[in-house]
């Protein structure tokens, strides 16, 4: 299995900006999730963020909230999500990054959880409600087990915080491009290029930009601002959910290709 860092190393050597699509596990069902991972992997994804559905997704806007609710109503459980990862990840080029909230991690016990996701083939972890101050208890054991924990920087973060987060983050630094929750926006926040520059002044680690990017043109702008990766969530989740699973899979495949084309030369 590729680590996130290795994946970025290889992309950088080719001068390529990474595409990281996001889907919610279990929406519309786990079988479709498994297929979607393969479709995205074959349609230009370089890494894939897999959202584990949670009852109280504080950082998510309406589209991903609704997807998580549907997945939970179907009875989706972490075990099943990891089973899908175990089954599918060996056939993918893209490392899988779990996007999940802290309580289910804490509930399982941090080390047990990390071992379980590592065994399933997960490469990295994004925990949107775990800021730097609370992250130490996760970062250390994760490093030992070989899971890269990606920390987030927001437009509101002070320079001091940006520096500290950039130092501690593993794999890459996740720049939240909007002051807000996940979800599609028509325009990119004007501060993104400046934020990228600020983060860059502190670190050589790759920087991924996400939250609110919903169209190829926005993805291109983000890349041109100097991002190493573009993360697209709600726009994919919505396309997958809007139609029958078959049509949804086709739609996200085509959309993923158009995003990739927009950030490639």
């Amino acid at each position, binding site marked *: 299995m590729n680590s996130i860092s290795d994946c970025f190393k290889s992309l950088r050597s080719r001068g390529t900006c990474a595409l990281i699509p996001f889907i919610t596990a279990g929406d519309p069902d786990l079988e479709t999730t498994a297929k979607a991972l393969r479709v995205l992997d074959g349609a230009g994804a370089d890494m894939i963020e897999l959202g584990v559905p*949670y*009852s*109280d*997704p*504080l*950082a*998510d*806007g309406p589209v991903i*909230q609704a997807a998580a*609710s549907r997945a*939970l109503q179907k009875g989706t*459980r*972490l075990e099943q999500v990891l089973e899908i990862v175990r089954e599918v990840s060996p056939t993918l080029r893209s490392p899988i990054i779990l996007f999940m909230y*802290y*309580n*289910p*991690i*804490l*509930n*399982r016990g941090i080390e047990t959880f990390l071992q379980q996701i590592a065994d399933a083939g997960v490469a990295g972890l994004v925990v*949107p*409600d*775990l*800021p*730097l*101050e*609370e992250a130490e208890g996760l970062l250390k054991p994760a490093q030992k087990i070989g899971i890269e924990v990606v*920390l*987030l*920087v*927001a*437009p*509101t*973060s*002070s320079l001091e*915080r940006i520096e500290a*987060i950039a130092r501690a983050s593993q794999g890459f630094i996740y720049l*939240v491009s909007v*002051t*807000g*929750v996940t979800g599609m926006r028509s325009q990119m926040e004007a501060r993104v290029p400046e934020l990228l520059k600020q983060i860059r002044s502190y670190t050589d680690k790759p920087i991924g930009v996400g939250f609110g990017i919903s169209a190829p043109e926005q993805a291109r702008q983000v890349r041109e601002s100097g991002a190493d990766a573009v993360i697209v969530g709600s726009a994919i989740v919505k396309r997958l959910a809007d139609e029958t699973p078959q049509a949804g899979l086709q739609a996200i495949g085509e959309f993923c290709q158009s995003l990739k084309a927009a950030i490639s030369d």
Partner: protein
Amino acid sequence: MTTTPLPTQSQAEQRPDTLGRFGRFGGKYVPETLMPALSQLEAAYQQYRNDPEFIAELQQLLRDYVGRATPLYFAERLTAHYARPDGTGAQIYLKREDLNHTGAHKINNALAQVLLAKRMGKQRIIAETGAGQHGVATATVCARFGLKCVIYMGVQDMERQSLNVFRMRLMGAEVSPVSTGTGTLKDATSEAIRDWVTNVENTHYILGSVAGPHPYPMIVRDFHAVIGIETRAQCLEKWGGLPDILLACVGGGSNAMGLFHEFVNEPSVRLIGVEAAGEGVNTEKHAATLTQGRVGVLHGAMSYLLQNDDGQVLEAHSISAGLDYPGVGPEHSYLKDQQRAEYYSVTDEEALAAFKRTAQLEGIIPALETAHAIAYLDTLCPQLEGSPRIVINCSGRGDKDVQTVAKHLQD
């Protein structure tokens, strides 16, 4: 009666610590976007809590606008109801927070936070509400200070507390229905946090309980500590000593912390919190977080939490919208683990019986939340020896609940 509205900081043991921890509980489990706002709020609080001008303005408004100090009332007929045949038994006092402007303790905190928000230059106020009392208090102080106000409220709660929805709108607040999840306080709180994440630069979030990320559990506690501070002075005046037992209902736990805080370092005073057992703690329909939950993280704090074995937060249930919450303030979890406070639960039925009894014996219609604390007397009084003095926080009045109770009595 004149008392200072804020607790002193001179207590030997500082809670929370500088990281916002009460032992292992509390903390700041929020998206990075909010971290600067939490630091700003903490700094503003530390600056103004000792600022004479801030304290004077708060004190004057608490007196002239809210109507403080609230009385400590001897509930003679409730006392007689629980008396032993020889005439001894618990002496029951009610701390009449129901007599505050807007009908509950919630305005103590809403008022003080709006004064902070004004000083921080925030133009827009948001809040969550369950029973609607915190929403009404927030809408009230926003009207008083001319600030834009948005209240998040679960659709289920909007139905059972329609009177409060009307009051909020009357005072110019926008009440935003939350239909996600279970449509109750938990979801309204999540939605308020999402709004704050989005509008943090011009918006202050007046969180209504001793829950949420640091510094809220500390700030909300301190702004309600006036309840205990007054109670101490009133006990001293009435009988020259301390109360023996303090009793309060606990949802998030703000009225209980407000009463308890002044007495946490008085080991002779028993502290008892009463949670909602709904249809019974052996059913799936209850809100008894401290007695039935496991440690977890919800809405930014580590505390006891009702959750399933996959770490998903469970739906709570209580006839009382204000107690219908699967989490609890982190300091209560700490006081429980330290065995400094005791926590029990009473069912919907027991609360309803206490609601009626208090109306009939005292001519006071308590909020359904408050009725849970009063209901625990049924269990507590037979266990007591002598004639200990019990102070119950009569945290709110029950006008808002009469529709719910009428409907329940019909069914």
